[in-house]
């Protein structure tokens, strides 16, 4: 395939400043393809992160034209304006180098929100039957396809303003576990998500839901947590 034109791609490289590259434009090209072209042909020192290239692993998210996106499944034609586009690292996370951010705070909050399985059984117990049609299971299913890409976390103004806030992804995971019959950590989850950095920080700005590449709805999941923690507060006093 031969290039049809040239793209002007500005890469925000943190303290090193922004750098602009001329990249050949192809008919079929993702944002990740463009970044890879720069790394392979123009500047081998450019650091970025990706793995699967098919929207499964959640490692390639970047800020593209001011908006957080999964770069491997974003066609360049969707984000280029007048032949130019700016690509930077995700916001709200410390930059390691160039386009690679440190995801540790994101995953630490996942754990802090009790986003882990709380088992009530052992391997010797029979497998509990799960009815896929119960309202709780439907609510859980709506949120479990999260790929941990941190697009919602980077999009969230509340995270920007409050370092302690657990963020949309971690809270949505807590919500799905709360709805899960196999999970026995209800009290732990409610305590974790109603603390200082918990669900009640959410201002329902909705950027998480607007930009989730998998069309999940963390904002509604957090609203669910607000209702559950309030019910728990009025019925149990905590």
């Amino acid at each position, binding site marked *: 395939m031969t290039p049809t034109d040239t793209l002007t791609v500005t890469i925000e490289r943190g303290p090193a400043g922004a750098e602009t590259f001329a990249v050949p434009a192809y008919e079929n090209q993702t944002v990740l393809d463009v970044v890879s072209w720069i790394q392979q042909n123009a500047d081998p020192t450019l650091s970025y992160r990706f793995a699967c290239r098919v929207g499964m692993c959640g490692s390639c998210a970047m800020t593209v*034209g*001011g*908006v957080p996106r999964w770069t491997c499944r974003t066609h360049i034609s969707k984000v280029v304006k007048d032949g130019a586009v700016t690509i930077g690292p995700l916001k709200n996370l410390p930059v390691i180098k160039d386009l690679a951010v440190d995801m540790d705070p994101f995953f630490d909050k996942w754990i802090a929100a009790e986003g882990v399985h709380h088992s009530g059984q052992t391997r010797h117990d029979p497998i509990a039957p799960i009815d896929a049609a119960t309202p709780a299971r439907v609510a859980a299913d709506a949120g479990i396809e999260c790929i941990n890409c941190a697009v919602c976390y980077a*999009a969230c*103004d509340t995270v920007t303003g409050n370092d302690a806030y657990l963020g949309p992804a971690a809270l949505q995971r807590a919500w799905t576990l709360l709805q899960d019959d196999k999970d026995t950590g209800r009290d732990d989850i409610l305590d974790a998500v109603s603390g200082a950095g918990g669900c009640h920080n959410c*201002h*329902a*700005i*909705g*950027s998480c*839901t*607007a*930009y989730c590449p998998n069309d999940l*709805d963390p*904002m*509604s999941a957090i*609203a*669910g947590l*607000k*209702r559950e923690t*309030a019910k728990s507060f009025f019925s149990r006093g905590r």
Partner: protein
Amino acid sequence: MIARAHPLRLAYLLHRLSGLALALFLPVHFWVLALALTDPAELDGFLHMTEAGVVKLAEFGLVFLLAVHMFGGLRLLALDWLPWTPAQKTLAAVATALSFLVACLFLLGAL
């Protein structure tokens, strides 16, 4: 900021900015009300100012701020405390837009 403008974020900004503006207005408002006790003559002078066109315009602004802030708050309460489905949210948005349209028609009729 502009790159990430979507309806809910704009609604949030409107709510926040109207709240800030009202917070700035309220102390002045209470101070003027307090003049009724401390200096009735000056209060009268203030009340005469309300006949000026620019003050009337400012009052429109004030009513606008109060309205968007109140409805913004009600919107948040409804959004957080009721388990809406996406379709219901769309219907609610359509209903709000329609009632806003009807209100605008009444306003145009009154002018």
